[in-house]
C-alpha cells in the first residue's frame, strides 16, 4: 500500500490516512464494541489480511476501500467508496480509503485495473469491477460465517457490517470474520444490487476527504518533507522548440543554501536547502536561451494558420448526412458566422511538483498525478532502474483538470534526484514555470453556415473547424488515416466505436457536414477539462441560437424540433429551461445550451444583465444533468457548480497568447480566473433516468459559455464570437 499514508497515526473517521499495515498497531484507539461488552485491545492482535484487493476490514470493522483512480477534487474517492460499500453491506460510517501504488498494481497483475483518471471516467469506467469487488468481499465474509455456524449461506443476512443467521440467532461482525473469509476461494459470479435498492450509493453522502482540508492537516505532494530532503526549482527553455545555450552557475552557487546547480535537458535547476532559496538563486542565474526557428513566433502566425484552415477545401469529415451543398443553395435564407476558441492553461492551484529519491537500489516518487501508472513508467524511464525497483506514491491532487495526466514533471524530478543520489529531492515549479510549460487547451476557429427554409426549419448546416489536434501531438497512433476523431467530440455519429459512443451528436439535421481542417501550431496541446466538447458546444449551440433568431423561432422550440428522437436530451433541456424561467415575461435575458458529453445529458439556462460599463453580469444559471445513475447527488451538484467556474473563467478570461516564441501570460495577474463576485447563483437539477453510467466532472463546462453568450445576445442584440470576452463593452 501507499507508504505515504502508512506513516500517520491519524485514524479519525473522516481521514483517509487509515493505514493497512500500521492499523494493527494502532486501531486500539477505536472501539466498535457495544457498550456492554468489554473493550477489546485490538492492538494485541495481528493485523487482518485483506478480504480482497478492494476491501480491507480491520478488527474494529473499519473498512478501507482501495481506490485506484486519483482524487483531485472531483469526489471520485467518495463515489467509488459508496459503490464498494453498497455491495459490501458495511456501515458507511466506518468507511475510509487508501490509494494502492501503481507498483503494487504491477506486481499483482493489474488487479486494480487502470489508474488513469480523466474523461469523467472514474465511476463510469470502473463501477462494474469495484462493485464486484465489494460484492465478492461480502460473499466471502458471509460464507465464512455460514461455515462457522454450519448453516446455509442463503439463510445469512448482512446489514451494516454484521452477518446474522435468524434460525440459530447467531451474528458476527465483519471484523471478526476477515481471517476466515480471506482463505476462501473468491466467487466468480456476482449478483449486484439493483439501483432501486441502494442505501449508500445514490445518496448525498458527505465526502470522505473533507476534514483534513479544513485544518491544514492534509499533506499535498508539495507539502511533503523527508529527513535531509533538498528542494529544487527549475527553468526549462520557455521558447517553443528552443534550447539552453548557456548559464552562469557561479551566481547561484554563491547564494545561501544552494547545494547544486544543474542542467537537465534544456532546463536549469537549482537545488538548495529550501525552495525559497532555490528559486531565488534560480531567478538570479544569468541564462541564455537559443530560441531556434521559432524565436520570433507569435499569435499572429497562429491566427494566420487557422484562418488558412477555415478556407481549406481539404478537410477530415467527422459527421455528415444528406447533401449539404445542394440544400444550402436551395435554402430560403442562409447565415454564416466565425467563432474562435483560444489556447488555455489548466492553472491548477497547486503548481506541478514531485519528490523523488534515487539510490542505486531503487527509485521512489511522491507526486500528484492523474495517472499513477504513467508516472511509474516515466519514473522507470528517467531513473534507468527496472520497474521492480521503482514505485510511485500518489497524494491527493491540488487540482488536475487533465494537466496531471502528463508526467513531464515526474521525469524532471527523477533526473534531478539521480544527480543527487540518496537524497529526497522535491521539485516545485513556480507559477511562472507552470504557465510557460502547459499542455494547453487546443486552439481552434470555426466557420458555420446554415440554411433555413421559408418555414424557418434548418435545411443545411456546415460546421468547419480549423485548428489544433490533441491526438496528433500526444497520441499520433490514435489518428485514423490522419483524422483526429476526438476533435469532433460531441458532434460524431453513433456506431463508430465503443470509445466514441459518448461523443455523439444528438440533434437530427437533414443535410449537414461537420469537418476539420487540421492546423497544428507548434504549441503543446493537452486534455483540458472538458476537452474538445467545450469549443464544439460553444460553436454549435451559439450558432443554433443565431439560426433560431434568423428563423424568428423560439430558441427552445427550435432545438426541441431537432431532438424528437432523443427524449433524454430533450428532457434535460426542458428541465433547465423550465426551472430557469425560459419564456417568462419578466424582462430578464436568458440563453440556453445543451449537449451530450462524457456519457451524460446536460443543459443550462443562463440569465444575465449588462453592467453600466457594458460588461456582463451573470445572475443565475440553472443546470440539468442526467448521468443515468447518480451515485452521489450532492457531489454531482458540486461538479456542476464547479464546471460553471471552469467554463466561465475560460469564457471570460482564459487565453494564452504568444510573442517571441513564448506565452505572454505568466501568472494570475495576466491569466485571470473567476472570483466569487463573478459567480452566478447556480441551481442544479440532477435527474438520473437510470440504465447507464455517465460522467459528471466535465460535460457541464461545455454548456456554460454558450448559455451565457446566448443570454448576452438576448440582452444586447450583439453576438459574442470572439473569446475570451475579458472586459469588453458588450454593447459595442
Amino acid at each position, binding site marked *: 500500500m501507499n507508504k505515504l499514508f502508512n506513516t500517520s497515526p491519524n485514524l479519525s473517521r473522516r481521514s483517509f490516512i487509515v493505514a493497512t499495515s500500521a492499523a494493527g498497531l494502532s486501531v486500539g484507539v477505536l472501539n466498535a464494541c457495544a457498550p456492554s461488552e468489554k473493550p477489546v485491545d485490538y492492538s494485541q492482535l495481528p493485523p487482518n489480511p485483506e478480504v480482497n484487493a478492494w476491501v480491507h476490514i480491520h478488527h474494529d470493522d473499519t473498512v478501507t476501500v482501495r481506490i485506484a483512480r486519483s482524487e*483531485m*477534487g*472531483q*469526489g471520485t474517492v467518495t463515489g467509488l467508496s459508496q459503490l464498494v460499500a453498497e455491495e459490501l453491506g458495511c456501515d458507511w460510517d466506518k468507511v475510509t480509503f487508501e490509494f494502492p501504488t501503481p507498483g503494487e498494481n504491477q506486481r499483482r497483475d493489474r488487479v486494480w485495473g487502470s489508474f488513469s483518471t480523466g474523461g469523467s471516467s472514474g465511476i463510469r469506467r470502473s463501477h462494474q469491477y469495484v462493485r464486484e469487488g465489494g460484492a465478492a468481499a461480502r460473499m466471502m465474509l458471509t460464507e465464512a460465517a455460514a461455515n462457522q455456524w454450519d448453516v446455509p449461506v442463503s439463510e445469512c443476512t448482512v446489514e451494516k457490517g454484521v452477518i446474522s443467521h435468524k434460525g440459530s440467532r447467531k451474528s458476527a461482525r465483519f471484523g471478526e470474520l476477515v481471517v476466515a473469509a480471506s482463505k476462501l476461494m473468491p466467487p466468480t459470479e456476482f449478483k449486484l444490487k439493483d439501483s432501486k435498492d441502494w442505501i449508500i450509493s445514490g445518496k448525498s453522502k*458527505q*465526502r470522505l*476527504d*473533507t*476534514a483534513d*482540508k*479544513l*485544518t*491544514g*492537516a*492534509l*499533506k*499535498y505532494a*508539495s*507539502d511533503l*518533507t523527508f529527513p535531509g530532503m533538498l*528542494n529544487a526549482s527549475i527553468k526549462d527553455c520557455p521558447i517553443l522548440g528552443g534550447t539552453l545555450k548557456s548559464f552562469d552557475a557561479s551566481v547561484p552557487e554563491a547564494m*545561501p543554501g544552494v547545494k547544486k546547480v544543474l542542467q537537465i535537458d534544456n532546463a536549469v535547476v537549482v537545488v538548495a536547502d*529550501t*525552495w*525559497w*532559496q532555490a528559486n531565488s538563486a534560480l531567478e538570479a542565474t544569468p541564462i541564455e536561451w537559443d530560441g531556434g526557428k521559432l524565436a520570433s513566433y507569435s499569435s499572429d502566425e497562429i491566427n494566420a494558420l487557422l484562418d488558412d484552415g477555415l478556407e481549406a477545401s481539404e478537410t477530415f469529415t467527422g459527421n455528415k448526412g444528406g447533401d449539404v451543398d445542394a440544400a444550402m443553395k436551395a435554402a430560403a435564407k442562409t447565415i454564416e458566422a466565425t467563432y474562435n476558441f483560444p489556447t488555455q492553461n489548466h*492553472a*491548477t*492551484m*497547486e*503548481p506541478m511538483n514531485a519528490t523523488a529519491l534515487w539510490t542505486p537500489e531503487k527509485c521512489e516518487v511522491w507526486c500528484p498525478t492523474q495517472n499513477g501508472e504513467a508516472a511509474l513508467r516515466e519514473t522507470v524511464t528517467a531513473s534507468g532502474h527496472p520497474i521492480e525497483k521503482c514505485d510511485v506514491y500518489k497524494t*491527493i*491532487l*491540488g*487540482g*488536475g*483538470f487533465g494537466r496531471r495526466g502528463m508526467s513531464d514533471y515526474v521525469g524532471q524530478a527523477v533526473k534531478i534526484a539521480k544527480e543527487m543520489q540518496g537524497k529526497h529531492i522535491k521539485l516545485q515549479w*513556480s*507559477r511562472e514555470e507552470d504557465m510557460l510549460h502547459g499542455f494547453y487547451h487546443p486552439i481552434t476557429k470555426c466557420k458555420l453556415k446554415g440554411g433555413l427554409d421559408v418555414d424557418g426549419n434548418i435545411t443545411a448546416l456546415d460546421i468547419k473547424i480549423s485548428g489544433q489536434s490533441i491526438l496528433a501531438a500526444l497520441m499520433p497512433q490514435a489518428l485514423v488515416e490522419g483524422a483526429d476523431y476526438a476533435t469532433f467530440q460531441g458532434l460524431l455519429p453513433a456506431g463508430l466505436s465503443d470509445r466514441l459512443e459518448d461523443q455523439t451528436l444528438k440533434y437530427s439535421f437533414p443535410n449537414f457536414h461537420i469537418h476539420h481542417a487540421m492546423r497544428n501550431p507548434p504549441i503543446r496541446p493537452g486534455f483540458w477539462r472538458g476537452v474538445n466538447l467545450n469549443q464544439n458546444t460553444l460553436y454549435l449551440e451559439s450558432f443554433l441560437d443565431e439560426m433560431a433568431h434568423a428563423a424568428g423561432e423560439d430558441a427552445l422550440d427550435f432545438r426541441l424540433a431537432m431532438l424528437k428522437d432523443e427524449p433524454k436530451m430533450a428532457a434535460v433541456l426542458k428541465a433547465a429551461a423550465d426551472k430557469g424561467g425560459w419564456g417568462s415575461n419578466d424582462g430578464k435575458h436568458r440563453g440556453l445550451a445543451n449537449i451530450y458529453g462524457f456519457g451524460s445529458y446536460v443543459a443550462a439556462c443562463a440569465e444575465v444583465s449588462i453592467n453600466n460599463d457594458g460588461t456582463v453580469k451573470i445572475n443565475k444559471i440553472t443546470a440539468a444533468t442526467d448521468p443515468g445513475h447518480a451515485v452521489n447527488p*450532492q*457531489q454531482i451538484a*458540486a461538479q456542476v*457548480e*464547479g*464546471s*460553471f*467556474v*471552469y467554463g466561465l*473563467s475560460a469564457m471570460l478570461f482564459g487565453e494564452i497568447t504568444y510573442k517571441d516564441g513564448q506565452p505572454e501570460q505568466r*501568472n*494570475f*495577474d495576466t491569466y485571470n*480566473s*473567476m*472570483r*466569487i*463576485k463573478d*459567480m452566478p*447563483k*447556480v441551481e442544479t437539477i440532477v435527474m438520473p433516468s437510470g440504465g447507464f453510467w455517465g460522467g459528471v466532472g466535465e460535460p457541464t463546462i461545455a454548456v456554460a459559455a454558450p448559455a451565457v453568450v446566448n443570454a448576452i445576445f438576448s440582452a444586447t442584440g450583439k453576438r459574442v464570437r470572439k473569446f475570451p470576452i475579458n472586459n469588453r463593452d458588450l454593447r459595442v
Partner: protein
Amino acid sequence: MIKLNVNGKKLDFDGDENTPLLWALREQLGLTGTKYGCGIAECGACTVHIDGQAVRSCVYPIAALEGSEEITTIEGLSKDGSHPVQQAWTELDIPQCGYCQAGMIMAVSALLKENPNATDQDIDDTITNICRCGTFARVRKGIHLAKKKA
C-alpha cells in the same frame, strides 16, 4: 534569529529576513497548511492572519514583522476544526481539491471577525481568492452559515 509569534507559540526563525512569511511558515516552521499558489498576492492561497487581518503571506517578508504580531495560520484557527467557518465548511462539504481552502477559510474568518454581518456585497468586495475547482457557490452559502454559527 527572529522571534515570531505563530499560533500562540514563540518560534525562532533563523534565516534570510527577505524570506516571505509563506516560505518561513512552510519550510522553516513546518506549517504547510498555508499554500503557495502564485507568489504575487493574486490568488490568496497563502492567506494568514497578522493581528487578525487577512494578509497574503507570499509577498510579506519576515523583515516587515516586528516579532510581537500575532500570526495565525490555518493550523491555529481552532484547536479541533471547530471554528464557525470550519463548521460551516464541513456541513456544506465545500472543498473540492481543497488546495485553496486554507487561504479561503482564513480570508473568510478575517472578514467575519471584522464584519460579523457581512453582506453579499461585502463578500464580493473582500473575498478575492481564486478557486479553480469552482467552490464559490458553496463558499458564499458557507459564509452566511458561519455567520449564524458564530
